[in-house]
C-alpha cells in the first residue's frame, strides 16, 4: 500500500506538472515522471514475497510462487519503449517550435500565436 501510494504521488506530481508548468520542456519532463509512475505501479504489482528474479536457474521444475510475476515486467518494457518514443518525438517537435517561434514558454507562445 505504501508503495502504491508513492506511485500515486509520482503520477500526481507528473500530471500536475504537465498541466501547470509554463515551459514546454518542463511539461515534457513532467510527462516522463508521470509515465514512470505507471511503471512503478505495475512493477510493484509483480512483486511476491519470498520470490526471486524471473529467470530460470539450474534445478527442477519451476514453481509459480518462487518467481516474480513476469507479465507486468514484460508490459512495462513495452511501456518504457512507448515513453521514450513519445519523448523523442516531442523533443523533435520542440526543436521545431523553438526554431519557428523562438520561445518554449507557453504563455509567450500563445501571445505569439494570437
Amino acid at each position: 500500500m505504501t508503495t502504491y501510494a508513492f506511485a500515486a504521488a509520482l503520477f500526481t506530481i507528473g500530471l500536475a506538472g504537465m498541466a501547470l508548468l509554463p515551459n514546454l520542456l518542463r511539461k515534457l519532463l513532467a510527462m516522463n515522471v508521470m509515465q514512470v509512475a505507471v511503471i512503478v505501479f505495475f512493477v510493484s504489482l509483480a512483486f511476491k514475497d519470498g520470490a526471486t528474479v524471473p529467470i530460470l536457474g539450474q534445478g527442477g521444475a519451476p514453481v509459480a510462487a518462487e518467481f516474480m510475476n513476469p507479465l507486468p515486467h514484460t508490459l512495462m518494457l513495452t511501456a518504457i519503449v512507448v515513453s521514450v518514443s513519445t519523448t523523442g518525438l516531442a523533443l523533435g517537435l520542440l526543436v521545431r517550435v523553438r526554431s519557428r517561434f523562438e520561445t518554449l514558454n507557453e504563455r509567450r507562445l500563445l501571445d505569439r500565436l494570437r
Partner: protein
Amino acid sequence: MGASPPPRHEASRVRRLLGAAAFPALFTGLVLGMAELPEFGDPASPASTHVSPRFIEDAAAETGAANMVTAVLADYRGYDTLGETAVIFAAGLGCLVILAAAGGRPNLPAAGMSHPFGSVILDAATRILVPVVLLFAVYVLIHGHISPGGGFQGGVLFGSGLIMMRLVWGPAHEGGAHHPDVPVFGPSLRSSLMLACAGILGYAGIGLAAMAFGGEFLNYGTLPLGSDPAHVRELATLGIEAAVFLTVAGTVGVLFDTISIGMRENGVPIGSGRGPRE
C-alpha cells in the same frame, strides 16, 4: 531569453486554482482505490495466481527461454512487441518528417556536437570504449534468453555507442570526416532509417512466414526449423530480438541525429550529400 516578463492571463490563474483543487483530489482518489487492491507482495493475489503461473512454470518447456520475461515478450505476447517496435519506429519516422526532411530554417545551432571536442583524452577513451559498448550490445541481444536483456536493451546500447561516436567525432554525413585524424564511423541518417525499416520488415516477415506455413500470425512453432517446437520457437525468438535490435538501434540513431543536427539541410533531401553546413 527575452527580457520582458511573461504576460499574465486570467485563464491561467483560473487553471492554477482549479489545479490546486483537482490534483489533491486525484491523489486522494488513487490512494482510496489502492487501499482495496491486494496487499503489496501478496503471493495469493489474482495477479500472482491467475494467468502468470503458466509463464513461470511452462515457459521454458514451451518456448525454450530461461528468461521468462523474454519468453512472454517475444513469444506469448509477441504481437505486443511488434506494436512496441512499431511505436519506436513511428518516433523515428516522425522526427525525420518534422526535422530532417522538412525545409525548416536553420536558425538554431546544432547541438554543440558539430565541432569535435578534439581532446586527446576524449578521443582515446572513445576509441577504447565504443568497441566495448557495441560488443556488449550484441552480447545483450544474444544472451537475452538466459539473462536480463534482449533486442531492445541491446539496440539502445548499440545506439548509445553510435551517439558516443557522434558526440566526440562529430556527426557523420556524406562529405567526409570532421576530425582530421578520425574517419567518420556510424551510419548516415538514411542508413539509420533503412536499419529501422529492415527491423520492422524482418519482424513482420517472420510473423507472415509462420502464416505461410499454416500457423497464426507470429506462431513461430510452425516454422520448419527443426523438430523440437521449443527449440524452433527459441530460434525464432532470437530472430525477433535481432529485428527489434535493428529497429531500435536505427531509430536511436535517427532520433539523436535529427534532434541534435536536424533542420539544417534546408529543403535538401536527407542523405543526398548536398546538405549545406556552415
